[in-house]
């Protein structure tokens, strides 16, 4: 059965146009997430804007925004890679901050470390400027629905 998410995924897979997908996830659109494809791997980008700042003195990005962006990247990767008919439910999410986020674009690369019958484990790296300049690492467990 086709539904809104399946249709959005079909468009995303065929044309690399993610607008239909982000339209179903207004918060992803609100913070301004972009999806890229680099060497066949999806990559999320969050273009910098001043209202993402959480510490005006440093200045540094809001740590919550970094976490939200990374969790969103994991959810979108699962939606694109699996045949989920809805956004997987987050079970838990843990982030370790390694460096303050500079007032610049941030990127996230996700790896689905384990795919069980019902639960996926996703590891996420968040970096600025180059993939070796990691500002945060995170992991989450997500409940899948495609097997239901």
């Amino acid at each position, binding site marked *: 059965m086709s*539904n*809104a*998410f399946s249709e959005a995924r079909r468009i995303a897979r065929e044309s690399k146009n993610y607008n239909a997908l982000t*339209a*179903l*996830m*207004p*918060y*992803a*659109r*609100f*913070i301004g997430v972009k999806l890229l494809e680099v060497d066949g791997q999806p990559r999320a980008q969050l273009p910098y804007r*001043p*209202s*993402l*700042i*959480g*510490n*005006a*003195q440093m200045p540094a990005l*809001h*740590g*919550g*925004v970094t*976490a*939200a*962006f990374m*969790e*969103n990247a994991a*959810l979108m990767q699962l939606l694109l890679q699996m045949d989920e008919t*809805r*956004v997987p*439910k*987050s*079970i*838990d*999410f*843990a*982030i*370790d*901050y390694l460096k*303050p986020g500079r007032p610049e674009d941030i990127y996230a690369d996700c790896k689905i470390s384990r795919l069980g019958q019902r639960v996926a484990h996703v590891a996420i790296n968040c970096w600025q400027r180059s993939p070796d300049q990691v500002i945060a690492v995170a992991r989450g467990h997500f409940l899948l629905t495609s097997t239901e």
Partner: protein
Amino acid sequence: MSLTPPYHQALTERFLQVVPHVRELGMSIVDLQTEGIHIRLPYREEWLGDVVHGLIHPGIISTLVDSGSGLAVLARLENPEPIATLDLRMDYQRPALKDLALDCRAEAYRVTPHIVFVRATVWQTDESKPVALSQLAFMRSSTSKKRVV
């Protein structure tokens, strides 16, 4: 009713007016005490992570928790001091539903010279039915005082 101490008054203003992302989201402070804080995020359609099912995106719940927990640390320290989130863990207890505000209560329950530990709860209408429970550690910059001397 007690008067808000000047430091807590300054902290309230600083949090709401000086943190750009807090201002953009429209958070408000319901209560701020040394022992803990309570902040609220009014609902907006932009918070949704799944329009089909009307569910709020988990990401914005982390943003609320990080903001509230940082505020709880500063309220507890009773002196302005730069702090940084070391880690944050979210345990999602139930979905957050559209049309409802999100409330967050955070408590800095353990303060050491370098680290502050915080726990936070997020709920919508009933605090005994939380949307998320969270645990955080913050680093203090109190050591830098020594370097200044």
